[in-house]
């Protein structure tokens, strides 16, 4: 069978199983969105703490690193004996995997604010909290957001593995399709995921540009 025929077959498969597709897609999106929100809620504050406290930076970064270094499948596999099967254990695995890009970007974003800027803020009489709120975070937001974007796009891919521990999602069609040699089913599961990742990346890119605002755009028009 040629690739075109495969594509047509998968399109037909999708049409015949559309309600099921919507169900899987919705599971997939839920996994991605919930785990991503949890990761943001944990990684951004952790990054802020790490950026402001050198002694905690090492331990915090190593937590994120460990979570990222373990192969995704291994994390999913590890979650299984600990938390069992289903949606929630899958969330935990995806959440752990999504943390690091956000964490490192939060730390980098805050730390990369120019020393002179911080010194000026200190010298003008800002407290540490004011410096964080008024200077460091606003300047770091585009970088933090880039971390969230990376993390979310990876997350769409990683969520395919949730199927292995009963988390559902588009992985169901892909994995069972491979087992059955049913390419139409594999493609019907894989292509929407790829499109989802691309769409997510573009939407985030758009927001990122907004967030960067005129201050960042200004770099291109700056004259010496």
């Amino acid at each position: 069978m040629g690739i075109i025929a495969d594509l047509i077959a998968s399109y037909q498969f999708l049409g015949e199983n559309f309600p099921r597709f919507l169900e899987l897609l919705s599971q997939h999106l839920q996994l991605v969105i919930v785990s991503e929100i949890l990761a943001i809620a944990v990684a951004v504050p952790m990054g802020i703490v790490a950026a402001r406290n050198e002694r905690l930076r090492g331990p915090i970064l190593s937590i994120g690193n460990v979570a990222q270094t373990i192969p995704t499948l291994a994390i999913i596999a590890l979650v299984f004996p600990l938390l069992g099967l289903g949606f929630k254990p899958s969330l935990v695995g995806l959440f752990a995997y999504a943390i690091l890009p956000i964490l490192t970007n939060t730390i980098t974003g805050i730390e990369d604010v120019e020393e002179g800027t911080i010194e000026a803020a200190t010298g003008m009489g800002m407290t540490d909290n004011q410096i964080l709120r008024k200077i460091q975070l606003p300047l770091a937001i585009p970088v933090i957001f880039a971390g969230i974007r990376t993390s979310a796009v990876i997350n769409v891919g990683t969520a395919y593995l949730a199927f292995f521990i009963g988390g559902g999602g588009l992985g169901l069609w892909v994995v069972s399709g491979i087992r059955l040699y049913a390419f139409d089913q594999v493609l019907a599961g894989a292509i929407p995921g790829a499109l989802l990742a691309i769409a997510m990346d573009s939407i985030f890119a758009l927001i990122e540009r907004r967030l960067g605002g005129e201050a960042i755009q200004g770099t291109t028009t700056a004259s010496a």
Partner: protein
Amino acid sequence: MIEFEHVTKVYDDGTEAINDVSFEVDQGTTTVLVGPSGCGKTTTMKLVNRLEDPTEGTVYYDGEDVTTLDPIELRRNIGYVIQEIGLFDHMTVAENIGTVPELLGWEQDRIDDRVTELMSLMDLPPDQYRNQYPRELSGGQRQRVGVARALASDPEVLLMDEPFGALDPITRENLQDEFLDIQDKIDKTILFVTHDIDEALKMGDMIALFDVGKLVQYATPREILETPKNQFVKDFIGENRALKKLQVTPVEEVMLTDVPDEDRDELAAIARGERDGIEPVKRLDSTQVALSQLIENDIAALPVVDDGGDVIAVVTEKAIRGRQRTYEAGGA
């Protein structure tokens, strides 16, 4: 206004930044801390707004030991200018200038008025620049914003750390001139850090010259040039001491008030602007300007005029040389 009393600062890693430094800054004057890099001049300045605290000795601000004052409050009462990187890139020009008033809890209307006032003072048309971001401005404009920002809450004291250091020579000179004019109007007590002796001679009422951690000489620009304390000071001033001396000598000290009758018509013509390219000088202009006018235009005498444009005296090359000879003989 600011007094250093036997101040020593040793950093945690054991480096001694300054050792037993004592000097006093009078209200309304500009004191320039000058010296090679690593001499401790910036550290000295940071001791005033408590970005650093002394290891030994005491720094007084308005009679009070600064270490007894709340650093946050103290800093909000002291204007602080550093090289242009200190601007907040994510805030507009108006927001940057309004930073300290906002910290102090001023009403927005009052902040807006103050920002407009300062932008006009610093020659930045408010309507044009208020909502621009720092990166959209030129280096000179950014530096103006920096100075305006430091002046925002009308502090008594200004600390300026190499404020014009990152600018090209022409912009720097213009800003120096403008700042001297502004200082005449605002009358702040200023501590100014630079590594450039020419800038120090130009900007300072007093100069504190540092060599690695030591305050070598604390004196007026004239005294530094006339009686450099030791070889280090002489070397730091550089080779053109005589020329630099002219720069800090006002015309009134070398001018001749007996204007020879036969020159009167010609001098009056220059004063009226009838001789192309030749500009009369005023009594407080630097002698260097007068000398360069004489040489450039190949003339023997240059009129000194009052504010009304009337000729009150004359400067000649010989008169300037006469002054120089006494200085060379008496000084070095």
